[in-house]
């Protein structure tokens, strides 16, 4: 319309911004193009058109970018929000696990699924019976997927929260004791020489050092050298699952530091300065090392120093 009019007058205006824009994107007709060619500015615009045809944005590797994105999402899922470790993680890991298992199976006829976490990570694992396990930092879990129906045994070293599907039954084995379950929710934690089991729903049977004890919802037991300590609690979910906080009751400070190391990649020196009588009851955050160390060691009378993000040195009494 406007374009048309300009040309009917044969009096188009090169200063008309829209005109040059349209020429640049090849939207003019032959006649319009031809009349523009005689314009003194034509050559420079032509050069600009050629030059821009020669240009591109730097390359973008979509696969690589997606890989980076996945790593970031998985890290985020694992570190910040264990409850959200949903479909993406599962998709990725089950893919990898299946591939690895396939290889292993080919050579060794072995089909053990093993999960071994770094400090501070948490991971959601689904059992073949749809029971769910949340594995806490620096913990290791394995079970046999193939023979699950015949062999319902799980090996655990560390801490995990189990949400057992209704009516399903299995046994969690640790070096310190074992836990038998039936449609329940509970945590098992073998920490140093302590064996801690908390029941959130249903009923669990705990066997350790020759003793057997059944616990019910809101009940926790802590076993050390055959000494059993039990107490009641009110939370509906472990604090490390709901608030990213570690919570311990009446355990030696040296043992709490082991729990700290499950959450942070941190070396600890000078543990010998800690008195055996230093007992810790309380919570520390799983995402703030400085704060966590302050809470744990603040209750003792030792002096300590943090060397960056990777070392805690206990200096003296």
């Amino acid at each position, binding site marked *: 319309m406007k374009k048309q009019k300009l040309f009917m007058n044969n009096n188009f205006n090169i200063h008309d911004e*829209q005109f040059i*824009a349209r020429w*640049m994107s090849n939207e003019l007709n032959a006649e319009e193009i031809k009349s523009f060619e005689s314009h003194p500015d034509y050559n420079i615009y032509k050069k600009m058109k050629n030059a*821009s045809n*020669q240009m591109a944005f730097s390359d*973008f590797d979509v696969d690589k970018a997606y890989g980076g994105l996945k790593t970031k999402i998985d890290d985020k899922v694992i570190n910040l929000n264990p409850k959200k470790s949903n*479909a993406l993680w599962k998709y990725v890991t089950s893919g990898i696990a299946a591939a690895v298992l396939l290889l292993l199976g080919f050579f060794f006829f072995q089909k053990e699924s093993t999960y071994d976490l770094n400090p501070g990570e948490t991971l959601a694992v689904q059992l073949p019976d749809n029971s*769910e396990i949340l594995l806490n930092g620096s913990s290791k879990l394995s079970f046999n997927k193939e023979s699950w129906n015949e062999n319902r045994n799980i090996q655990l070293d560390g801490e995990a929260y189990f949400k057992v599907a209704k009516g399903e039954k299995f046994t969690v084995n640790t070096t310190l004791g074992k836990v038998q379950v039936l449609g329940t929710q509970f945590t098992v934690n073998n920490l140093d020489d302590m064996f801690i089991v908390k029941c959130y729903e249903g009923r669990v049977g705990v066997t350790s050092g020759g003793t057997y004890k059944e616990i019910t919802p809101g009940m926790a037991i802590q076993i050390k050298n055959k000494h059993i300590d039990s107490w009641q609690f009110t939370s509906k979910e472990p604090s490390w699952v709901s608030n990213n906080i570690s919570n311990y009751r009446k355990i030696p400070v040296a043992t709490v530091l082991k729990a700290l190391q499950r959450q942070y990649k941190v070396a600890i020196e000078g543990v010998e300065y800690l008195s055996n009588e230093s007992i810790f009851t309380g919570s520390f955050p799983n995402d703030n090392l400085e704060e966590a160390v302050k809470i744990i060691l603040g209750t003792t009378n030792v002096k300590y120093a943090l060397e960056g993000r990777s070392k805690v040195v206990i200096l003296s009494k």
Partner: protein
Amino acid sequence: MKVVQGENICKEKIFHHLFITHSKGLRNFLIAKFGDPSEAEDLVQDAFIKLWDNCGKVELSKAKSYVFTVAVNLGISLRRHDQVKFKHHGIIAGYSKGYTNETPEFEMESQEFMETFKKSIASLPDRQREVFLLSRIEKKTYREIAELSGVSVKAIEKLMGKALKKMKEQLGNNI
């Protein structure tokens, strides 16, 4: 560990497909808009992470505009803090086979001209440069650009025309 049912973005297959389909276009759009390739790629990542976080709430048909909006808003909020200069190293000028040979009389311009030309692009006002790059490098039509920024085709054509004139004047002085 909730498994979300149905054909939504929470399925990794779908999410992956969205990334493959839109990440490059978004990244190039962000380079055109903000000028910094590595920042553009960070914004793409952040936007898709946000899409993943909200995968249950965003409709599949809105996913593209969602990541574009999120990335642009993030980019703008970054700009409130820093005055960022347009970096033209994100644009490569070369004899790559990627260009479209759109006219029969297509000619290569000299390396020297290309350098001056890139500088003139970098010196354009933001909106003009954005339109110019989306049109000339991303080969988007003025209509598509208009839709991306929610203005009329005429407004885009005017911005493009202004950009071209400004560059012509600069280049004219340099040749």
